[in-house]
């Protein structure tokens, strides 16, 4: 590996991402010899060597700021431009991009927000960012064809207790401490919004026909979906629904859930364990 090229690239990386700017980066840089940056990067009467590196430093920050604004529009709305700018400045120092695609740039923003003082006045921000990130991930998550209702109807009743349901591989269930769904929806629909209320909630984020949806899950449905994701049998799912809500008519309740999951495109397969063994 060419050592000099490696040193040059390492030096430029450090200067472009220097926390307090290229000038201070140059001042504190030990790799620079007596000639300083001018001995490496050519300057002229229009632009010094440092000014030329600063062009790259600005592009680095503002390109990623734009990506994060696009991925977290509600977080941006709640924080405002200046606060979001400051948040991203710190975030990129803590979590600099490592992947070839900018898709991954925002994957740690919610975690970064959890301990960030900028969220002191709006403690729901980390959950809001987590929901926005999930939407981005679900949008590009794996494909699977939705299960047709007829294929469920074709299964003989005797097989139903042992039946297992496969949930769409792109779907996510988030466990949040703040009820941020309504806040996000208000911002998306350009309605007046108010801060999210505290309260543990599970939010389902899923995709159907290339569109991403999200909704809060009530207790029995959340338990049932999570159990289905873990490979629980239909009998176990029915137990959870029957006991979870104290519903007077558990059969009607499970039928309603199944109908909704089918219409939402959440189910991709219903199978008996033996079906897999044969495969």
């Amino acid at each position, binding site marked *: 590996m060419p050592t000099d090229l490696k040193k040059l690239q390492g030096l430029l990386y450090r200067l472009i991402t220097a926390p307090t700017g290229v000038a201070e980066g140059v001042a504190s840089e030990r790799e620079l010899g007596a000639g300083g940056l001018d001995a490496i990067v050519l300057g002229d009467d229009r632009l010094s060597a440092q000014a030329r590196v600063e*062009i790259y430093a600005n592009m680095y920050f503002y390109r990623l700021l734009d990506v994060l604004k696009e991925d977290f529009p509600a977080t941006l709305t709640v924080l405002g431009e200046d606060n979001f700018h400051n948040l991203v400045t710190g975030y990129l120092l803590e979590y600099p991009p490592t992947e070839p695609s900018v898709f991954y740039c925002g994957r740690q923003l919610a975690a970064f927000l959890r301990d960030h003082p900028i969220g002191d006045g709006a403690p729901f921000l980390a959950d809001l960012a987590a929901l926005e990130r999930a939407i981005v991930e679900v949008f590009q998550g794996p494909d699977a064809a939705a299960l047709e209702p007829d294929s469920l109807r074709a299964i003989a009743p005797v097989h139903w207790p042992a039946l297992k349901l496969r949930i769409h591989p*792109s779907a996510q269930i988030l466990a949040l401490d703040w009820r941020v769904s309504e806040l996000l929806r208000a911002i998306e629909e350009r309605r007046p919004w108010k801060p999210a209320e505290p309260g543990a909630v599970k939010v389902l984020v899923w995709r159907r026909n290339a569109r991403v949806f999200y909704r809060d899950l009530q207790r029995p449905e959340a338990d049932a979906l999570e159990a289905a994701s873990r490979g629980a049998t239909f009998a176990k799912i029915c137990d959870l629904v029957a006991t979870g809500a104290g519903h007077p008519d558990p059969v009607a309740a499970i039928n309603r859930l199944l109908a909704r999951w089918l219409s939402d495109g959440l189910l991709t397969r219903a199978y008996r364990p033996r079906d897999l063994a044969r495969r």
Partner: protein
Amino acid sequence: MLGYGVGLRPQHYSHVLETRPKVDWFEVISENFMVAGGRPLEVLEGVRANYPIAMHGVSMSIGSTDPLSRSYLRQLRDLARRFEPAWISDHLCWTGVAGRNLHDLLPLPYTDEALRHVVARIRQVQDVLERPILVENVSSYMAFADSTMTEWEFISAVAAEADCGILLDINNIFVSAFNHRFDADRYIDAMPVERVVQYHLAGHSDHGAYLLDTHDHPVRDEVWALYERAARRFGPVSALVEWDDNIPELAELGRTADRARTIFGATAHTAKPDSLEHRDAD
């Protein structure tokens, strides 16, 4: 020769799928489709069913001193197998180092060391992809004291030694010529005719002391003049209009592509000799 195409951007997905506009071909950003599933791949399926495409990457980091990413190359190869692009291109630059990504196209010093390094890596890439790639000249805002050759000497030597094609970005030549005070005409005149497979045409921003490759303006008249010079020298070469910010309606991009077609048609050009593109077609 694919003709006169347009860069496919999300703002135009629905329009392209629903109306099938008259466009010769589309260039797609490879990384936007190196995903597990969802809308991007669904769109690309629909577009590919009706148009030729080329895949253009921004993150191969062919000039980096980090090892080439095997997983990136495998994903790129798999995408190419699925969508069968006419060719695959990326930039003659580096985008990150030490496992970090700057998401920008940084220039290399034009030295023998960099030349050897880049040539070896392009050969590795071509082995994985099982086809020649095109490398694109980037707009740059800094040049290096250590350089021992011009940019056009460097890219010509890279293409010859790695046996790859060249995606000649006419706007990038103009931008870099202004920023580094070199003669853009000399650049065009020095390019090996048989290696130039595609052009990029785009707009840029004037910041007074420098030009910035922003892809957010119409193609400037000076860039069209440079394109005309290239059209005379290189003969029939596929051209592609890039627009990445303040993106207008597709019809305007189509008119820009048509202008490139008209200029080429009115240009007394020599027939292109056997090129990399033609060699692949055989």
